[in-house]
């Protein structure tokens, strides 16, 4: 079995895995990072979204070999210690989650949306950008609110830095 080496949440890791191993399975089964979820078989639902070199990617669609040498960030890696990422805090404060299953993927996708589209987002843009993430609980109403709220918080945080 080939060995892959990559950086996950700032830590260098390597694993011997079958060629066909998907990144999501490496994270969940080999590294114990079970915050990244699997909700479908067809790369539709987005429960598995992580960041690869800073970009949101569905980790169920990536063979670990493709991620060799990459820098991966998962839901477990975005808070600074006890300080939540503004997107995490906004999801909580706006009741942007219910069962919590889609939430890690939603948060990782939403951070990427703000990174790409800037913090001056409008509702229509957020709804369009969330096309690749399915939630069955919230009707998206509070997720959209959370993303807009987080965008403002991230702007303030960036200004402060």
């Amino acid at each position, binding site marked *: 079995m080939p060995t892959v080496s990559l950086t996950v949440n700032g830590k260098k890791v390597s694993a011997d895995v079958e060629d066909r191993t998907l990144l999501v399975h490496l994270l969940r089964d080999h590294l114990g990072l079970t915050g990244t979820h699997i909700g479908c078989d067809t790369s539709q*639902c987005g429960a598995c979204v992580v960041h690869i070199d800073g970009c949101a990617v569905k980790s169920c669609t990536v063979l670990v070999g493709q991620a060799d040498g990459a820098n991966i960030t998962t839901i477990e890696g975005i808070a600074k210690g006890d300080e939540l990422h503004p997107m995490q805090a906004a999801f909580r404060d706006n009741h942007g989650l219910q069962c919590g299953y889609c939430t890690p993927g939603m948060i990782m996708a939403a951070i990427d949306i703000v990174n790409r589209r800037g913090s001056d987002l409008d509702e229509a843009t957020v709804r369009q950008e969330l096309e690749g993430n399915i939630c*069955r609980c919230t009707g998206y109403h509070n997720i959209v609110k959370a993303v807009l709220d987080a965008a403002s918080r991230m702007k303030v945080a960036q200004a402060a830095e």
Partner: protein
Amino acid sequence: MGVEGVGARVVRKEDKRFITGKGRYVDDIRLHGMTYAAFVRSPHAHAKIKSIDVGDAKTMPGVVDVLTGKQIVDDKIGNLICGWMIHSKDGSPMKMGAWPAMAPETVRFVGQAVAVVIAETRNQARDAAEAVVVEYEELAAAADIKAAIAQGAPQLHPEGPGNVIYDWTIGDEAATDAAFKSAAHVTALDITNNRLVPNAMEPRAAIADYDAAEEHFTLYSTSQNPHVARLVLSAFYNIAQEHKLRVIAPDVGGGFGSKIFIYPEEMVALWASKKVGRPVKWTSDRTEAFLTDAHGRDHLTKAEMAFDKDNKITGLRVKTYANLGAYMSLFSSSVPTYLYATLLSGQYNIPNIFAEVISVYSNTTPVDAYRGAGRPEASFVVERLMETAARELKADPAELRRKNFITSFPHQTPVIMAYDTGDFNASLDAAMKAIDYSGFAARKDKAKSEGKLRGIGLSCYIEACGIAPSKAVGSLGAGVGLWESAEVRVNPVGTIEILTGSHSHGQGHETTFAQLIAERLGIPISQVSIVHGDTDKVQFGMGTYGSRSAAVGLTAILKAMEKMEAKAKKIAAHQLEASEDDIVIENGEFKVTGTDKALALPMVALAAYTAHNLPDGMEPGLKETAFYDPTNFTFPAGAYICEVEVDAGTGKTSFVNFVAADDFGRLINPMIVEGQVHGGLAQGIGQALLENAVYDSSGQLLTATFMDYAMPRAEDLPSFNVSHTVTLCPGNPLGVKGCGEAGAIGASAAVINAITDAIGNNNLSMPASPDRVWHAIHG
């Protein structure tokens, strides 16, 4: 109301673990020595199994064992059952066909399991499952209601001739027929209520772990009701005695009804774990979920409503065929009968109602309760009839409804339900104001001048929730009681654990239930833990479905709290040398009213556990239990109004506005209630516009992935305008009614009423896809 008490918008305690990736769902759990199961499933909708060759599969790398349907039958694992007896109008009991956990001889729907591979890894199990060779003799299939009831239709079960499970009626047929004979106007509709797939985002999963030394099983299960699972697995499926089976439902990623039922996969995992002597994990993939999770709805209905010359309703006559799929799922029989026809009176005075429901088998996935369960179908029938009647009678749809609203309570309908309270005018007023109903005509004209078709649609729904008085449901055929249990444990340091038989899989019980404790004791919710989802911790419970957790589960907690508080007051009075009647509980203290004497809760608790100075004869400890059985259903109701714009060129519907005005009685946490409404609306709108489980005539499910089944996405939905009116429920001391299903019950009729108003053609089925809408406009 304190800052964390009843009525406060408290952010959820459970959220931290979910937003940081620390939730603990079944598939996140790994046990030492765990193996993985992969099922071999039928590719045919109806076939005889001629042979199963597991020889090659057993030699594949990592394979521990391959087990078949014949073996599970030989081991006397029981057939799956339906736990609600329905009798046909001729008095005969429903016709329940045998459903083994894996098919030994005959398969009756695509995806039915015939064998299972147990292997060291998930991939090895899946590889070997593909190497199992099953030879089938294909049989003709009946893939929908019409095919199932046709002359000469393929027969699914020898127990159910003609594929009829029951032919059930409710109401007074003769009086209803007489009302139609003397009617000034009759509105009639043929209605298809489309089949839906619940699609909780977490696929079902199970881990079974057999301990040979103790002869004890542990099952980790994606269950809405772990105690019911244990009861059924023990009493009917012969898996283990109840005290030798622990069921744990940890974090569960949504249910919507589909995780109420006990499925073959959990039975097989338990059985296989004992057979191979190791833990067995099975996690559904999404296509397996589409093929094997119980589906929802799937009715064909002919409905007629009779009016007198004053536009008052005089009668309602309904005939419904319900497709229950290939086998009778756990509560399937009750959904199109007592959860459907009993709500056909809607919000209206209807003196005569008669309904006939014929449930049939077909070669499709079993159908059971899905968010709303029967009540969305009833509401859709009634509200489509009302809107259609208003158009035919040239009456304003709101005014026609008002003219027929029930305005005095209690109100006994002709179909069992006794509505306890409500104010239907108030919710309709609120919704009409929120959407500026009176300004609609001008908006429609303006849209028309811009080449757009604008429409508005109402839906005034009522539902029966808080299921339910055990005696009542028992008399209607339920195999279980529907009370709830609670235990209040005050620890010696004054923190509190609440054990509940309700199960939270998104509803936020860890917060809302703690809010009641905060309200009563004046302590922060951080001092309260809600314990649920483990049969070893909670003695018994009936679980969460039917919008019952606040009305039944939280009331049980209240009852246990009252007992605990009474004892604590006795202890405080004794310690403070006061009369217990003078003790009041405020801000976490037991105070002697009118004095400055007080004892903090931790001191009372400590006194209960040190037992150094208790009143004579009092047992030590501070722990109380209650079982609460409701006295009636609760009746959440509301008014939804939807305004849409249809593009005549593409048939695409866009939302202009969607308003909801619900009466749920007292709200424990309005933020969470609104979230429940949003989610329900999304599912109701999803049914109306997008979602449809489609089988071809051979019984293949054509919509078995998220690429084929249109789940609502963020861009498909508007932001919602949600508000509340309040009549307190008199049936429980909290005055709560339940909010979990309302959106899914009321939304779909509002959407279809709006689109048909926009396009001027009432003949439109769900889902109202652009294609269907375009054809409804252009022919």
